[in-house]
């Protein structure tokens, strides 16, 4: 049974379709609303409770010995985006809304430690 040519309707359909891929970085896709990318942290809202560091699954968020601007006796969290999985759990856990995940997704960099959000 000659069944060759069964793909032809599909081939023709795809001919008129735009490619799915784009020539990044010359051409960029618009990120969708509410995607999770680079963390924005507001030190002035943080009370140093440490919940974010306790819930972070990858150890990207940790408390450092820098006096917290709000409560001097407490520590401040840092976010090492090299380790971050962008799950947004810290954002969800923070009782003071000090952490936000923005849609800034271009995070390529040259050296370790360049991407620590403080």
């Amino acid at each position: 049974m000659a069944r060759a040519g069964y793909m032809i309707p599909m081939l023709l359909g795809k001919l008129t379709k735009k490619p799915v891929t784009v020539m990044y970085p010359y051409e960029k896709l618009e990120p969708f609303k509410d995607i999770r990318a680079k963390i924005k942290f507001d030190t002035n809202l943080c009370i140093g409770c440490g919940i974010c560091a306790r819930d972070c699954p990858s150890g990207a968020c940790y408390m450092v010995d820098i006096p917290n601007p709000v409560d001097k006796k407490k520590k401040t969290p840092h976010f090492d985006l090299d380790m971050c999985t962008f799950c947004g759990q810290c954002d969800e856990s923070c009782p003071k809304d000090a952490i936000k995940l923005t849609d800034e997704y271009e995070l390529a960099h040259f050296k370790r430690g360049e991407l620590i959000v403080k």
Partner: protein
Amino acid sequence: MAEVTIPIGPIHPALKEPERFMITIEGETVVAADVRIGHIHRGIEKLAESKTYIQNLYLTERICGICSFTHTTNFSQATEEILGIEVPKRGVYLRTIVNELERIHSHLLWIGVAGHEMGFDTLFMYSWDDREIVQDLLEIMTGNRVNYAYNTIGGVRRDMSPEIAQKALKAMDKLEVAMQKYIDIGLNEDTILKRTQGVGVLSPADARRLTAVGPRLRASGIKYDVRKADPHAAYDEVPFEVITSDTHDVHGQYVVRALETLESIKMVRWMVTNLPDGDYRVKTPRKVPEGESFSRTEAPRGEDIHWLVANGTDKPERLKIRAPTYANIANVAFNLKGAHIADVPMIVAGIDPCMGCMDRVIIIDADKKTQTVTDEAGLWKFANDWYANGGKK
């Protein structure tokens, strides 16, 4: 004719994941096949014991990159059962929607991989192109393309707005048109028929004996689907058919997967239109009381099982995972025997293997150069002896 044994893997250009297949051939026919697993064992079960329940959500998500959601669903369900928490209806529906979207994307991915393995790369490119529709929808809904971080203990993390619901319905219409084409091609295209018909035939009796699961089992004509047999999430309310095939070969698996995708599209449409109002999550305590629970879901590749033991702290005592590929690997080894060597990739790809999910318990003794897969009793003995000897063998 002399027999030749060819080792394929663990590192081999044809394998996407490291696993070792020892294939003995006589001429062009495989006379013996031995599958050695364990090359990408990552110790996830042990790691889970040192992480809190919230952290474990993201850990279990990383068991598999493709069916990540089914693992978090299982883990959340198991935890919710011990906590005695009822997830709000809306949360349950949203969970089920993402589960089905995951099935759609995974099956489209398989159609592409199968196309690639049979030397039909056009199919591979096109099915992955259409897969982008569902990937985009997942990203809009959950915030990420893979490892969605959508499930949480007590529900889901984001609500579905009316705009997203509209987008979902539109995407389903587009996908339905596309899927119809893949079904037509699968049933009629010569390349597919010649490479898959009569390849990897697994009779229903053998499928049962070798504990096949998922599309492999249904392609052997056995009507078994965890979504119907033991409905979790919203599966007891959503109407759908369990697809089976009576050809028992790799072509049957293509047909089962393609038609199942069509079912999933209809299910998503039904759930989005009948989405209940109300909350989509409840607050849960961090500490889980002592208890034990067992949860299973139908992952795109078959039955996925999580067994959780809680000890009253915020970390699990034990988490045991049985991913679908582990149940399916026995029938691959069986099917390889007697096959034509050119059909080996098709048979292996047929079950949609996910080695990373599978590698759980294997004991490798490098000194004695032995590898044994142990049962529970053997493992208990090993563990007790090991501790009794102060950590030495």
